[in-house]
């Protein structure tokens, strides 16, 4: 069940060369060959007996002002990817370049200014807010630490009012504790705390998954408004392809620690090429009872393989309807297929 020692360097991804031409603008964020393995200890001596291959050599760019979605099923490494990018969880190897600086090589002190500029909001608004701090304290702590507001108490106080109003909450929320709010309101608080630091880049890790649909729509609209107002760049992690399709410009599809496809969201159903992306689209029920017969759900057999012992070839081979012999021995590499689209699949290449 557990593999011996790390062997992740097997197929290094090529450095994607920047496209030529004068119109080229450097991406805000560049992730290259990012790897995050969690050691698994065992035996009498508590030695490292293997690794969970959570993120296994992921490369992509995010342009300024873009909303990039990351979709995949539980355990595919999408949350780990989000945390590794801002070094909440130290990457095992690879680089994360933010506006020309490789932040994986920075010391803790050097990293702090980048932490302000790269914020994260989490799925669970219940556990990601300190229950002992009032809303004012929650915001103040972050604002003071990063010295976002010049001047004294009064200025900070005004700024907090401004932020609270921005996320659509009432002024008297300031003196309340997190438990006094509903789930949707708490998610607004999470957004307020991230926004208070005037970030340029926001990682949203399943921000609406715990919310009811009517509240989910409110929070998505809020994020859309704030994105426009502050010119934010967002990495939006979700398991819900419908939400991603609605909200994002481009989506990265992850399977067992790898990106298997990257494509624009404008016309997912027509453009998706990787059999896994197509299966995800086909397994998602659509909200129209008339199409039940004409469009039965795509049923994939089996489960996602264990990340302790990822298959040697393509991770999706065991469940893939297009599987060929080559897929079981050689892992496909993410290659450009058409406009702004990359696919890692041998069957698609043929």
């Amino acid at each position, binding site marked *: 069940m557990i593999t011996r020692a790390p062997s992740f360097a097997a197929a290094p991804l090529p450095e994607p060369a920047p496209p030529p031409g004068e119109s080229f603008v450097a991406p805000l964020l560049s992730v290259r060959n990012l790897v995050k393995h969690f050691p698994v200890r065992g035996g009498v001596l508590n030695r490292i007996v293997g690794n969970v291959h959570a993120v296994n050599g992921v490369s992509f760019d995010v342009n300024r002002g873009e909303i990039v979605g990351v979709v995949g*099923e*539980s355990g595919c490494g999408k949350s780990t990817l989000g945390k590794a990018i801002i070094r909440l969880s130290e990457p095992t190897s690879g680089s994360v370049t933010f506006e020309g600086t490789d932040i994986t090589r920075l010391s803790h002190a050097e990293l702090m200014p980048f932490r302000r500029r790269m914020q994260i909001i989490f799925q669970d608004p219940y556990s990601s807010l300190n229950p002992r701090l009032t809303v004012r304290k929650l915001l103040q702590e972050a604002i003071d630490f990063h010295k976002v507001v010049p001047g004294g108490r009064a200025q900070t106080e005004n700024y907090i009012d401004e932020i609270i109003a921005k996320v659509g909450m009432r002024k008297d929320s300031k003196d309340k504790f997190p438990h006094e709010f*509903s789930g*949707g309101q708490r998610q607004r608080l999470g957004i307020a705390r991230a926004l208070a630091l005037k970030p340029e880049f926001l990682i949203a890790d399943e921000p609406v998954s715990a919310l*009811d*649909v*009517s*509240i*989910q*729509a*409110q929070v*998505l*609209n809020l994020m*859309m408004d704030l994105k426009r107002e502050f010119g934010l760049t967002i990495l939006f992690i979700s*398991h819900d*392809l*419908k*939400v991603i*399709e*609605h*909200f994002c410009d481009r989506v990265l599809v992850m399977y067992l620690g790898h990106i298997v496809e990257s494509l624009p*969201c*404008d*016309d*997912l*159903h*027509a453009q*998706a*090429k*990787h*059999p896994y992306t*197509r*299966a*995800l*689209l*086909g*397994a*998602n*029920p*659509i*909200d*129209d*009872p*008339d*199409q*039940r017969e*004409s*469009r039965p*759900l*795509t*049923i*994939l*057999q089996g*489960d*996602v393989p264990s990340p302790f012992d990822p298959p040697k070839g393509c991770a999706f081979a065991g469940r893939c*309807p*297009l599987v060929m012999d080559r897929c079981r021995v050689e892992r496909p590499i993410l290659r450009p297929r058409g406009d702004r689209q990359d696919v890692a699949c041998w*069957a*698609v290449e043929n």
Partner: protein
Amino acid sequence: MTTPSPILSVRHLTTRFRTDRGIVTAIDDVSFDLYPGETLGIVGESGCGKTVTSKSIMRLLPERTTIIDPSSQIMFEGTNLATADDRTMRRIRGDRIAMIFQEPMTSLNPVFTIGWQLDEALKYHTDLGRAARRSRAIEMLKLVEIPNAERRVDEYPHQLSGGMRQRVMIAMALCCEPDVLIADEPTTALDVTIQAQILALMENLRKRLNTAIILITHNLGVVAQVCDRVAVMYAGRVIEVGGVRRIFHDPQHPYTRALLDSIPKAGRKEHGKRLPTIEGIVPSLFDLPKGCRFADRCARCQPLCRDTEPELLPAEGVGESHLKRCHFPLSQAAPVTSASHAAMTSSPGARP
């Protein structure tokens, strides 16, 4: 559904809880019928009373703090389950009416094997001998498409994946071939590819065993995919009941409409647009308005709505098959067009 007599008939079901803040009415005057072989969806947002409804039917709520109003009727084959004694309930529960829950991790006992847990219901409800029960357990695991059933039967829940555990739950629920299966958010904790497997499995078994299913969910896509009829709940009330096509294409209650509108639509070119939302929040069950419970959030709200709560009555021109609880239903509203899905249907199974 042309079948004349329902297998389960719920009338005026009202469940109250004793709490520190006084008595609260969690579900109020809930009525619906369930016909043999059909799938009835119960939808609504958190706290609307979906789960309380199902647990009231199964009488699984803590007796000390729960009051099921004496006027409530849950008629199942001539027995009123609302007032039935414990012995009767034990005989029916698991045998004639079975239930599966959202969390297959917590509803299976971690210290017993899968086989032991399947055996429990069979031992209680059938006269089969030990060997016959074991082969029945294996047969059930095969029915829910668990590979290596002979080996899996001796494994423990932690050795199975989430999807497999939910299959085991379904096998347990179906091992006595119940007439009614109540599935409370059976796929909510699962990934979409696994959800598709489980939905297909339930659909198969329903056809094969003619089990009537009550499917409780907040996922309208799942409802559109598998349900024949739908009951929409809001703040403890059923606010609309009808055939799945009518509910999706011609909803009468503004809440149903708003709920349908607020989900991001797959494949539609509404990318980047604002989603229609329902402003405000669900009223607290401790402080319910006098009139319609949706009035505060409703765009069509009139003085009458704040004054008098509407009854659950047939929608105009369709008779008993479509009921709504609204003074000003959306009868004249244009139905949802499905033209925008055309791009998707043109290549349903197309592979690159």
